[in-house]
């Protein structure tokens, strides 16, 4: 059975199952969501209005046995940035959609009756619209429980909590993972778009699917074996990430002077050891958690973990460096257990743990709480925001709007999105990615930290300007392509350092679809996607002045290396010369 496009119209609660247009055939994941948004969404539309569309698309290899291929992309015009957005996630939804033959799910329109929230249940032949008044006002775990009671336990669930219902910019879309916990389409406020369309949750039938068809199973198996081996033999994906998770980065960024501290006032933090990956791994071992854990079936990297409290009770999983940094060095909380508790709460509430935590750090500058006041931070997160108090609404609008509401100058955002975890002045290649990516400040869009700090793919001095624009450009092109395959971005470490990795990935795509793509074709795909996204933003009103970092980084010197952001506008704009 050929894959189909499932198109849902919330204005009249109807659906159509369409053939895939020829021009979308070779696309998946981000390539497909960004193409659909660029072709079908008016760039000038209001992100929460009737003309925005919410698009889900599994990657080209999702649903196959390929390692680490279980990422699902979600796209729309972002209410946080006002530009195009793609945010991808692990969990079970990508593989289930792919096996059901759903190449993309496109959700259009807004219901006329503003008082009703719906569940969409997607099966092979049908999309059901089920009013769910009993779920309104509940957060994600309660929704998961309700769906587990209703369907086979494998059913895929994508849901929003109260904050998504209130259409706040920090709202994400949460996705059930294989262990029954949550993963997130985190960035860009996509949960607010889902809330605007009055969709509380989307379920995808996991009972009637079939295995995806592979054109050349033998070749696929062969390439898949090589690909998996490159991931397992790479010291980063094979050893470092499973042992310490992404939080291994705290100490290396701290050493390099690139750990943004006290709202980007310094590049290192005297308490880094209390929140670092090594400390986290010690706690996990002592308390009976898990240091290795996959966010989706078929993951061989296992960078996730299960983090318990001192009594051995579950606090969180998918405990990421960027969240720990933001609540730690940026906001000042030294207690890793409290950070974990807040991370687990953010899963349940359905908020982007990066945007929310960067915003809470800025709230210190706004005088809303003191630096390091974890109790007050927890209260803001657990009470003010989810109950929608006036203060909660301002906080829930994200870092940029909080900064405007309180008249702040030192606001760490690009295109309205909070800057994560890597100080642009001390990791300059990453600064170029933050400035230029159409997504707003997004570290995954072109992870120059790899080459600036981690010596992956060579080394480009993080404190110098030379080579950074080219580095960020190459990485953004490659990431756009990888984000279209359904692959986890961490395959990039093997791709950067092992010549067998990328060819085997392309061989798998060729074997899956019976095509003959070359590395050049795949890189050209990355270029095309990036340009499409950039053009959408230009039509939405963005210009060169939006490809800039916050001005304070140009005139405030960052210790310990005493560096500023010293790129000229012309130098940054060179990025788009390809």
């Amino acid at each position, binding site marked *: 059975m050929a894959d189909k496009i499932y198109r849902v119209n919330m204005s009249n609660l109807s659906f159509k199952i369409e053939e895939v247009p020829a021009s979308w055939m070779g696309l998946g994941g981000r390539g497909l969501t960004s193409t659909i948004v660029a072709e079908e969404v008016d760039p000038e539309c209001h992100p929460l209005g009737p003309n925005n569309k919410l698009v889900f698309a599994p990657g080209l290899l999702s649903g196959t046995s390929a390692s680490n291929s279980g990422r699902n992309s979600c796209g729309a015009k972002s209410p946080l940035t006002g530009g195009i957005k793609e945010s991808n996630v692990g969990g079970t939804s990508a593989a289930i959609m792919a096996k059901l033959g759903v190449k993309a799910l496109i959700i259009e329109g807004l219901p006329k009756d503003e008082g009703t929230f719906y569940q969409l249940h997607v099966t092979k032949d049908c999309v059901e619209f089920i009013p769910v008044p009993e779920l309104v006002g509940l957060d994600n775990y309660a929704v998961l429980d309700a769906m587990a009671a209703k369907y086979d336990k494998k059913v895929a669930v994508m849901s929003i909590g109260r904050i998504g219902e209130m259409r706040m910019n920090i709202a994400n879309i949460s996705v059930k993972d294989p262990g029954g916990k949550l993963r997130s389409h985190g960035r860009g406020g996509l949960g607010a778009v889902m809330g605007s369309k009055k969709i509380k949750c989307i379920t995808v039938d996991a009972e009637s699917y079939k295995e995806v068809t592979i054109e050349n199973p033998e070749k696929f198996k062969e390439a898949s074996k090589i690909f998996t081996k490159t991931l397992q033999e790479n010291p*980063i994906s094979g050893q470092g990430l499973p*042992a310490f998770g992404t*939080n291994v980065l705290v*100490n290396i960024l701290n*050493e390099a002077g690139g750990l943004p501290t006290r709202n980007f006032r310094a590049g290192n933090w005297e308490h880094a050891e209390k929140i670092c990956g090594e400390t986290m791994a010690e706690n996990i071992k002592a308390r009976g958690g898990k240091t290795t854990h996959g966010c989706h079936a078929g993951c061989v990297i296992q960078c996730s973990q299960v983090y318990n409290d001192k009594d051995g009770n579950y606090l969180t999983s998918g405990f990421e460096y960027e969240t720990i940094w933001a609540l730690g060095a940026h906001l000042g909380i030294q207690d890793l257990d409290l950070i974990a508790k807040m991370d687990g709460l953010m899963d349940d509430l359905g908020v982007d743990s990066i945007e929310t935590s960067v915003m809470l750090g800025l709230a210190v500058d706004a005088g809303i709480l003191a630096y390091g006041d974890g109790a007050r931070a927890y209260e803001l997160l657990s009470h003010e925001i989810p109950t929608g108090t006036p203060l909660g609404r301002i906080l829930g609008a994200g870092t940029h709007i909080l900064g405007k509401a309180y008249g702040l100058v030192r606001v760490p955002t690009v295109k309205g999105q909070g800057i994560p975890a890597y100080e642009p002045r001390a990791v300059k290649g990453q600064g170029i990615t933050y400035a230029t990516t159409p997504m707003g400040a997004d570290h995954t869009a072109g992870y120059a930290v*790899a080459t600036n700090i981690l*010596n992956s793919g060579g080394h480009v001095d993080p404190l110098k300007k030379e080579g950074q624009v080219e580095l960020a450009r190459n990485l953004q092109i490659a990431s756009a392509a990888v984000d279209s395959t359904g692959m986890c971005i961490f395959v990039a470490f093997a791709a950067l350092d092992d010549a067998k990795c990328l060819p085997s990935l392309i061989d798998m795509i060729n074997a899956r679809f019976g095509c003959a793509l070359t590395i050049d074709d795949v890189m050209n795909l990355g270029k095309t996607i990036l340009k499409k996204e950039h053009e959408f933003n230009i039509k939405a009103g963005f210009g060169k002045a939006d490809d800039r970092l916050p001005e304070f980084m140009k005139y405030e010197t960052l210790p310990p290396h005493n560096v500023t952001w010293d790129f000229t506008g012309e130098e940054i704009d060179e990025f788009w010369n390809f």
Partner: protein
Amino acid sequence: MRIVVKLFAHYREGRFKVQEGDFPLGTTAAKIIASLELEKTSPLGVLMVNGRHVSPEYVLREADEIALFPKIGGG
């Protein structure tokens, strides 16, 4: 001369987090890496002295802080 040696990730196992020690003048970063047999644990990923990436041939100076990481990553 006094040098501070900092180890991270797998390099800490069976060794230490931070140690200050006396080293002869002219000691290179490579010599410290070899004396600690770090690469028996895992290949060297990143070597920094005073927060700057340097090569193993770097000749250490009084009060330098050397930080040693196996290949690690995240994001």
